[in-house]
C-alpha cells in the first residue's frame, strides 16, 4: 500500500514541528535499489517508527532526508519546503547548496554510532552548532547546553570527553547535541542498536521525554518493538524499498496484514 489514508499537511504545526512528504523517491547503490518509487508522508508532530528487515532501505529513508545520500529521483518536502528542488518558473529545478542548507537547518539526526566529536567535551559538542551555525553567543549556548545536558541527566558530565562516557551516556549527549539546534523534525537511526542491553533503557527514556514534549516530529528506525508500540503514532513496515503496510502500532504488530510483515515480526519475536 502506498496511498496514505489521510491527506497530510506537510507544513508545520502549532508547536513548530515539521512534516515530510516524499514522492517517487528512488535511490540505488550500484545495482542495488534501496528506495523504489517511495511515497511517504509524515504529519507535523507525528511519531513514526519504521521497521523492516535489514537491508530493506529503512535507514536510507532517514539518510536521504538528512541529505547524507542524494536521491536519484523524486521529491522530498520538509516543513512545506522542497529539500532538493527550488521553484523555477512553473516547475522545479535542482536546489543550490545554499537552499539545501537552509531547509536542512530544520532537520536533526541521531546516529547509531553516536558520531560525537571525540576531541571536544560533551558541552563543546552541544555548543558547536548553536554558536557556529545559529549565531548564538557563547554564554547563551553554554546555558542552553547545560539545560539540555540536565534534561538528559548528564549535567555532571559536561566537561568529559566522549572517550570518558559509556555508550548510553554518549548517545544521550548526541541526542542533546541534536536538540540544541531546535530541529523541527528529528531522525533517529537505530539509536540503541550499538548499546549494551542494560544501557538501552536510559536512552529510550530520553526519547520518551522528547516524544511527550511533542515539539518535534520524530522518525525512528528501531528494533525495539515494545518501545515502538508505546511511543509511535504510526508504524511503517518497510521492505524492498517500499512501504509494505502502515498503521497504528497495535494494528501492525498484532494483526499484520502482509505475509512479509508476519514473517518479519515472527523473526524479531523469536529473540
Amino acid at each position, binding site marked *: 500500500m502506498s496511498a496514505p489514508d489521510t491527506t497530510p499537511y506537510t507544513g508545520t504545526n502549532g508547536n513548530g514541528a515539521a512534516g515530510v512528504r516524499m514522492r517517487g523517491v528512488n535511490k540505488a547503490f550500484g545495482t542495488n535499489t534501496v528506495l523504489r518509487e517511495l511515497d511517504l508522508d509524515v504529519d507535523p508532530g507525528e511519531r513514526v517508527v519504521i521497521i523492516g528487515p535489514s537491508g530493506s532501505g529503512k535507514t536510507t529513508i532517514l539518510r536521504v532526508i*538528512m541529505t547524507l545520500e542524494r536521491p536519484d529521483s523524486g521529491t522530498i518536502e520538509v516543513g512545506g519546503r522542497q529539500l532538493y528542488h527550488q521553484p523555477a518558473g512553473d516547475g522545479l529545478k535542482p536546489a543550490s547548496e545554499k537552499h539545501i542548507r537552509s531547509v536542512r537547518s530544520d*532537520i536533526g539526526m541521531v546516529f547509531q554510532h553516536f558520531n560525537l566529536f571525540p576531541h571536544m567535551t560533551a558541552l563543546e559538542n552541544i555548543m558547536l*552548532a548553536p554558536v557556529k*551555525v545559529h549565531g548564538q553567543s557563547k554564554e547563551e549556548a553554554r546555558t542552553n547546553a*547545560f539545560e539540555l*545536558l*540536565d534534561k538528559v541527566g548528564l549535567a*555532571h558530565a559536561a566537561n568529559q570527553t566522549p572517550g570518558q562516557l559509556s555508550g548510553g551516556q554518549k548517545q544521550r549527549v548526541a541526542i542533546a547535541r541534536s536538540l540544541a539546534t531546535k530541529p523541527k523534525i528529528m531522525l533517529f537511526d537505530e539509536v540503541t542498536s550499538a548499546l549494551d542491553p542494560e544501557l538501552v533503557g536510559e536512552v529510550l527514556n530520553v526519547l520518551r521525554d522528547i516524544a511527550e514534549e511533542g515539539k518535534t516530529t520524530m522518525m525512528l528506525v528501531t528494533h525495539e518493538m515494545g518501545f515502538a508500540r508505546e511511543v509511535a503514532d504510526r508504524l511503517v513496515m518497510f521492505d524492498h524499498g517500499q512501504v509494505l503496510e502502515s498503521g497504528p502500532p497495535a494494528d501492525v504488530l498484532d494483526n499484520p496484514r502482509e505475509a512479509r510483515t508476519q514473517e518479519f515480526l515472527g523473526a524479531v519475536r523469536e529473540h
Partner: protein
Amino acid sequence: MTTAFDANQVQPPKPWYRRGDVLTVLIAFALGYAFLLFGVDESTRFRTRLNPDPDLTFDWMYFWHMVPLMWRGLLATVKATVYGFTIAIFLGLVFALLRRSKLRPVSWPTAFVIEFIRSTPILVQLYFLHALIRTWDWYSPATITILAIGLGIHYATYCSEAYRAGINSVDKGQWEASTALNLGPVSKWTKVILPQAIPNVLPALGNYLVAAMKDAPLGIAVNATGILFFANAIRGGDFRAVEPYMLMGVGFLIASLPAAWLVRRLERKITYERT
C-alpha cells in the same frame, strides 16, 4: 529554580591558547624562530685560523678548532630547513584541500602539479628555481631564501599526501555529524575534521622534517650557505677534506637525533591518546 545544576558550578575547560603546556611550546617555537631569523650568520666565509698537520694524518686539534665554523654552517642549514618546512606545512595543506575539491578544474591541475613536483628531483628543481628567480628584476632573494622556497615547494607535495591520508582517516561518521548539524565548510574543517586529522599527520610530518634537513645541503647547487658549504670551503682553502666532512656528519647527528626522538615521542603520545 527547579533545575539541578548551576551554570557556574561546572567550570568550562581553559581555551587551548591559555593552557600552560601549549603556551610553553608556542613560546619556545617563537624564540627558536626569532633566533634563526636574527641570530644566524649567513655569511659564506669559512676560514680556519690554524694550520693543519702537514703530514695529512688526522689532526684532532684542527678538528676541534673547526667546531664553531661547523656550528655556523649547521645553523644556516637548520634555518633553511625550518623556514622551508614552514612553507611546506601550510602549502601542503592548501594542496591537499585543493586536491579534494569537487571542482575538477581545480582538483585535476593540483593533482598534476603534485605528481610533477614529487616525481622530479629536488636538485633539478633548485637549479630551475634559481634560474627562474634570477630572471625576475622585482625579486632578488638571498640564496638561502631560494633554498627555503625550493625545499618548501618540494616538501609541500609530500606533506599534502600526508594530510590527505590524515583527512581520510577521520571517521565517516564525523562528516555525517557535521552535515546533520548543518555546519558550514569553514566550521566543519577547522572545528571537526582538521583537529582530528592533524594529530594523525604529525608523525609523518616529523619524518618529512628530518628528510628535508637531509636534503638541505643540496642548497649548494644555488650557492646557499650551510654545513656542506662550510666543508667545501675548508677543503678549498686548506686542502683538507676528512676533518670537515667528518665534522659535518657529527653536525647532522646533533640536529637529527633530537628531531627523531621528538617524532617517536609524538607517535607514542598519539597512540596513547587514541586508546
